[in-house]
């Protein structure tokens, strides 16, 4: 039992930094697009008004 635990830990350690973070990249880009859409919308409102 203890041995398996040790093994998983080791695996995490090796993979930690260049680990699979595709979901993270997708998530932050969704966030980024949300920011762009809201900012551009209000900017358009600003340009439209006098």
């Amino acid at each position: 039992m203890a041995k398996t635990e040790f093994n998983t830990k080791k695996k995490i350690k090796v993979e930690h930094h260049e680990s699979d973070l595709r979901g993270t990249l997708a998530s932050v880009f969704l966030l980024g697009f949300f920011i762009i859409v809201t900012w551009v919308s209000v900017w358009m409102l600003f340009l439209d008004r006098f």
Partner: protein
Amino acid sequence: MMNSNKLEKVDSRDAKLSMAYFYVAFIALALGGLAGLLQTLVRSGKVVLPWGIDYYQVLTVHGVLLGLVLTTFFIMGFQFALISRTTGTFTNGARITGWVGFWLMTIGTAMAATMVLLKEASVLYTFYAPLMAHPIFYIGLTLVIVGSWVAGGSMIATYAKWKRNNPGKASSLLTFMAIINTFMWIIATLGVAATVLIQILPWSLGLVDTIDILVSRTLFWYFGHPMVYFWLLPAYMCWYAIVPKIIGGKIFSDSLARLSFILFLLFSIPVGFHHQLVEPGIDPAWKYIQVVLTFMVIIPSLMTAFSLFATFESFGRSKGAKGLFGWFRKLPWGDARFVVPFIGMLSFIPAGAGGIINASHQMNAVIHNTIWVTGHFHLTAATAVVLTFFGISYWLIPHLTGRVLTKAMNKLAIIQGIVWTIGMSFMSGAMHAAGLLGAPRRSSFSEYGGAAQAQEWIPYQIAQAVGGSILFIGIILVLIIFINLAFFAPKGETEFPVGEVADGAEKPPLVFENWKLWLGISAALILFAYTIPFIDIIQNAPPGSKGYKFW
């Protein structure tokens, strides 16, 4: 080994100190929340306050209790517990200093509150001159600030002592973060202390006849923006370094977490002009420079977003999650200590997007002082920050009182988070929309002489009252949980979760704790952003203003 065992639990004497701060914080939540409910009801146009209670008096109560008292007291209590847990029990001297800070803050709060209740200080929590409150109101606020300095000094002294005894070692991540937040608070509050002590107090006491309005406002906003980051950073501490432990994962990167906090220390302060973008008397080029500096402070939040998603994804994948978003389902959705702060994190996405819009120089005119701004900071402060504070309470209060969060209370806490989400979606959503249509903030119900535009705002104001009522139910729920955890929950041991870095992770560079360097750069940035415009403001000052009491 013995040492680390001893650190597992906050010493009971330190726990008492933290709990004292939390009692005041939650009393403030109860009363301030009630005031908030009354405001939304009045502004719906359907309710009139009895006994001649003034809308703006209630609004002052709401802002002072929730914006100043709840936040500052909670943060002080939290940071005392954090430092005690991750750096070691406070010495008797440091703990007594913490109590002195507590009593100064509490007495100051009582003084300010008394003046507000006597209707001597309906100036809202921003107390802009030349509206002039009773001097005791300002003395009370000064004591709150001074008390927070004393308490902060006790934390810094405890940290400094640890550094002396452990040369060449990096401090614990949570202590480091708490110390950054304390430094930022002390630097920022110098501005509000200066305007209150040098300008407002002598003027309200009648020692001088007039006050320079723009100097006072500029000093206030030098403080006002880092104040909101002072609220936010404890939430970030929880997200970066506590939530990973709660879900069973690891801190994504200790070094990047420290770097983001350093960036907050540097860029939270020299940015106050973005609250003054449509004010006369300030050169627009200097406004733009501070807008650029404001955008710099977005970067650590971009880093934070990545780190948090990465923590969640790494954990989910270690549990065998597949696909692009499979990790999302592996998160502990039944654990209030995770779910409630997680809702807070999500709310920071629209909150941050709105904040970028607010700070965008001339575009600020679209939303300045409309109720959009109120909607904005009810997402940042009143959702992201406060829900995280609630999430922290669900393990910290029982840890400090030697009790446990029962299954029933855990469930109630999750329901509380959902209630808050629904209520805030109504209230903040309606505020954002009405603000874009021009509805002003901080205003009682009015038909504005029957103007067609003002009629359009009323349905949104009714939606705000619906949201406000739901939020008040949320406040009752959290008070039930707090009282349970403080006095009635079953006795037992509750974990104080402190995140760990992955085993092979690199050590954080010691340069992060070179305070001379960071405080020096922080001072240089402040001097750069403020010296020339501030001299301009003083040199070109108009005749000063006498005081007014228009309530």
